[in-house]
């Protein structure tokens, strides 16, 4: 019963966002083009690097390109589904309109998560997939079915982790109200995910795996698709992500309680 309610709500939210985006039609096209330009820019260091040498930290050009492709896909998810809502919600908290969200009989976290989408970011998803396909052409063989499944599972895991991180940021916005720049921070840190995790020194490798799980976003799904990840690690990632999701939900609930005790 509730599931159909929330699915219907999701559909209406997506439709509304799409309508809002298409209000500025020129913007739609320009943004799509911009996203292609950004992807091209991201490839520059990769090309310069591999122009000169064969491998870095055990990663050849093909595998590194897989990581890059996954980076573009995850960036599409971040900028298309996660950041827009985050920006919209932080603005609502600032203007006081967030009160109206709390007056609705739907789960506040759900409403907040579906506030706004940027549909043209689908371009990123397509570009990313294109890069991965080209990477495998360069590698010389296609990925095995099991590897592909593991990779897809870890992509889903990565999205869950990214989403949980974002919920934590919104929760923080209740306490420190002016956080528009936090979206830039998220994007900037996320930038490190375009490289295979192995290139970072040991300390950073640990931080990017367990503290800010960037490794999970791109390197691990890439390794899974390339057949370099064992089943235990895959399961550990899924488990870790699930735990993180639950934690973020708990902190969200705490934040709402704090907001409803102290807002004015």
């Amino acid at each position, binding site marked *: 019963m509730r599931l159909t309610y929330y699915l219907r709500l999701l559909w209406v939210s997506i439709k*509304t966002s799409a309508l809002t985006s298409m*209000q500025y039609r020129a913007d739609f096209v320009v943004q799509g083009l911009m996203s292609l330009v950004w992807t091209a820019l991201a490839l520059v260091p990769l090309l310069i690097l591999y122009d000169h040498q064969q491998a870095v930290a055990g990663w050849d050009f093909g595998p590194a390109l897989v990581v890059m492709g996954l980076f573009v896909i995850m960036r599409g998810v971040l900028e298309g589904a996660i950041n827009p809502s985050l920006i919209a919600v932080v603005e609502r908290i600032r203007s006081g309109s967030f*009160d*109206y969200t709390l*007056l609705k009989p739907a789960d506040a976290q759900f409403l907040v998560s579906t506030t706004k989408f940027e549909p043209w970011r689908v371009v990123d998803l397509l570009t990313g997939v294109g890069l991965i396909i080209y990477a495998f052409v360069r590698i010389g063989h296609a990925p095995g079915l099991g590897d592909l499944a593991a990779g897809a599972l870890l992509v889903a895991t990565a999205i869950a982790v990214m989403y949980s991180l974002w919920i934590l940021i919104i929760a923080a916005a209740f306490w420190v109200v002016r956080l528009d720049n936090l979206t830039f921070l998220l994007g900037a840190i996320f930038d490190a995910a375009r490289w295979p995790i192995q290139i970072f020194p040991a300390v950073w490798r640990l931080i990017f795996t367990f503290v800010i799980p960037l490794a999970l976003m791109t390197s691990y799904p890439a390794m899974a698709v390339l057949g370099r990840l064992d089943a235990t690690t895959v399961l550990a990632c899924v488990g870790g992500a699930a735990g993180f999701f639950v934690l973020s939900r708990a902190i969200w609930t705490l934040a709402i309680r704090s907001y*409803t005790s102290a807002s*004015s």
Partner: protein
Amino acid sequence: MIRVRDLAKHFKVHKRPPGLAAALKSVIHRTYTTVKAVDGVSFTIERGERVGFLGPNGAGKTTTLKVLSGLLHPTSGEVSVDGHRPHKRDAEFLRRITLVMGQKQQLIWDLPPAETYALNQAVFGVSDADFAKTMAELSSLLDLEALAQKPTRQLSLGERMKCELAAALLHRPTTLFLDEPTIGLDVAMQVTIREFVREYNQRHDATVMLTSHYMDDVVALCPRVIVIDGGHIIHDGDLRRLVKTMMPDKRVSFTGTVAPDQLARLGRVVPADGGRTSIEVPEDRLREVVGHLLGLDAVHDLAIEDPPLEDVMRKLFKDHKPAEAAATPAPAAEAAS
């Protein structure tokens, strides 16, 4: 039905003193002070009542409304709306109430209000049949025909307010909390909204709790007023009785000149605008004074009125102040209002 017993709501606010040195210090160490926005408030409102909730800025009106609608947890006391505890925010409770905040909007800015209505329909789970019926009713009462399809940012303030009301009512709530719904609107629009609220209240037996700084709203809509000041209720009851108790004398005003000494014998002169003269006359002398004035050739356009509600309120707050001075004054500036 709304029941409130000994409601208190305190806020911890951090003090931000001016000056560079103090600003630097606050980077390391923050000091807090407790603001008692609401401090021991009790009242009961029956289904279908229209109640005006009055008080100066910072008195605790908005805080009380937010507690009643579930947006704020009470610090202490009992609150019950239609049998629900508001701060639990049950879906059933939220479907029965609505809060309209005159200074905050829920309509999506870049899209026509119709899109917000569609979203709210989905959120509140209103069936298509009910939605069509309610929208038709709201549309005709508020004259929304031409407006619903224009992007919100292209609407004037008054048009937007009407659409905001529709968005807030399309789920047919039976308890309405209206926080300054007419603020910033021109007189004609204020009247439209007042009449709409009264109509809605009568058709659906909806409870209405209204705050407003426009006394005309209260006089037109609310037979009962609850007056709050400094977090306490200082009056709860019939509006006309309040006026009679605070300022029992009637106001008699007219155009024309009457000699000052003669005027002084008729009643106490009070300021009036528009070139009219106005005197305060006790009720028992009314017939005599009016009769006398009607006999004078120089007097035209005689009118007998209750004193304006603003003056009544001002007197009420002033009388209340000595009692307040004894208690610790709450810094109203930073608290909710």
